């Protein structure tokens, strides 16, 4: 089973939802359930429809595994809550296909909330 390692960073107040920690590293299986179900262990995927790990799956993973409180402040439907900026390797995710971007080993994904006081 191959895995990918990711660096995740939260800013703009979003870190408060994630144990008040800005930087996280995590390892994902490179194949994930097509329906973004995060409850299925990577070694239990036989017979489950899969897709390459993408940013959309990462959002579900962060919400279900890493987030500590108020999930509605992070996600809405299948994407981030409007007002949260996402950068993939220092590039606006809107230029990288947003949720459909297929994650590569050592990618750095940054989430910044614009919703907190100016």
């Amino acid at each position, binding site marked *: 089973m191959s895995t990918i390692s990711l660096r995740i960073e939260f*800013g703009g107040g979003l870190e*408060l939802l994630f144990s008040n920690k800005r930087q996280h590293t995590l390892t994902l299986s490179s194949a994930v359930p097509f329906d973004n179900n995060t409850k299925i262990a990577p070694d239990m995927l036989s017979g489950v429809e899969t897709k390459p790990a993408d940013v959309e799956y990462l959002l579900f993973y962060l919400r279900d595994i890493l987030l500590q409180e108020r999930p509605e402040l992070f996600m809405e439907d299948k994407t981030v809550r409007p007002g949260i900026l996402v950068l993939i390797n220092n*590039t*606006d995710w*809107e230029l990288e296909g947003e949720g459909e971007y297929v994650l590569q080993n050592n990618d750095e994904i*940054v989430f910044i909330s*614009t919703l907190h006081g*100016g």
Partner: protein
Amino acid sequence: MPSKVCALCEKSKAILKRPKTGQQICRDCFFYVFETEVHNTITQTNLFSRGDRVAIGASGGKDSTVLAYVLKALNERYDYGLHLFLLSIDEGITGYRDDSLETVKRNQQQYDMPLKILSYDELYGWTMDRIVSQIGKKNNCTFCGVFRRQALDRGAAMLNVDHIVTGHNADDIAETVLMNIMRGDIARLGRCTSIVTQGEDTIKRSKPFKYAYEKEIVMYAYFKKLDYFSTECIYSPDAYRGHARTFLKDLEAARPSAIIDIIHSGEAFEIREEIKATQKVQQTCKRCGYMSSNDLCKACTLLEGLERGMASSGITDRARKRLDAEGPPPGNLRTIPFFQPLSGNPTVIIEAST
């Protein structure tokens, strides 16, 4: 996915999709267009004159931090000839404002600008912590908003500045347009999109980021690695604004130009003369000399309510009548020092940056 090339220089890798135009641009072109658009806003509206003393209302948050950085850069690049200051208001909110003021103090060093901090405690004799302990979390934003507005003007008078600039961005202004429409507040709807506002004798206020999208301000801070503070105020947020904000962000997700479109709508509204005529005439507060549309300004009214243990008298007419029925205020009532705008010389020693 192959990386995209910048639509402006056609050389470097694009890193940002501009919400205003949909253009894909590289890092250096982004810095250039962001700064140049602010410069264009400043020159097209004749915002400043050479030699102006300008205070940047600095909270330590993203908008005012980027504003301080960009104004300093433009002042040098285009030789505006401005004297820039940082002005911060300490509302006295433990665990919130004390932390963000630390950021402002670092900005003072980083940007080499003099800093003045004026506290509610000093000016009104009350911190927000103490106000909330008396009145609870409901309505405390009313106190904070009224007190902050006057404190900024008074801090600016102490610095002897001509002009206060604030970090209000396009998203903030679009939000305010929506709120004023929903509340039917015609007077505010008329003036909330103006880039400059000025009362009778108060200091000029302006919003150089009027057309700057929040997304770009945050991206700018991120790529420039600017030091800013972000956390929610620990007291109850302005719920009405929160709804307008969520609505606006949803609109923006569907159509990014929505923000600038709403601002243009706000600018295009015209108030009929007969509506204007019913609006109150500005006068000065009989107690503290600040501009007011009644005998007493809002801050004096709120302060009197706090001092007499009837804080809601500044919020509702009914409670105000109850307060008036108790008779005139006692002679030893704490009041706000009399307002003396633009005296000629700075009335305080400002903390020099080193």
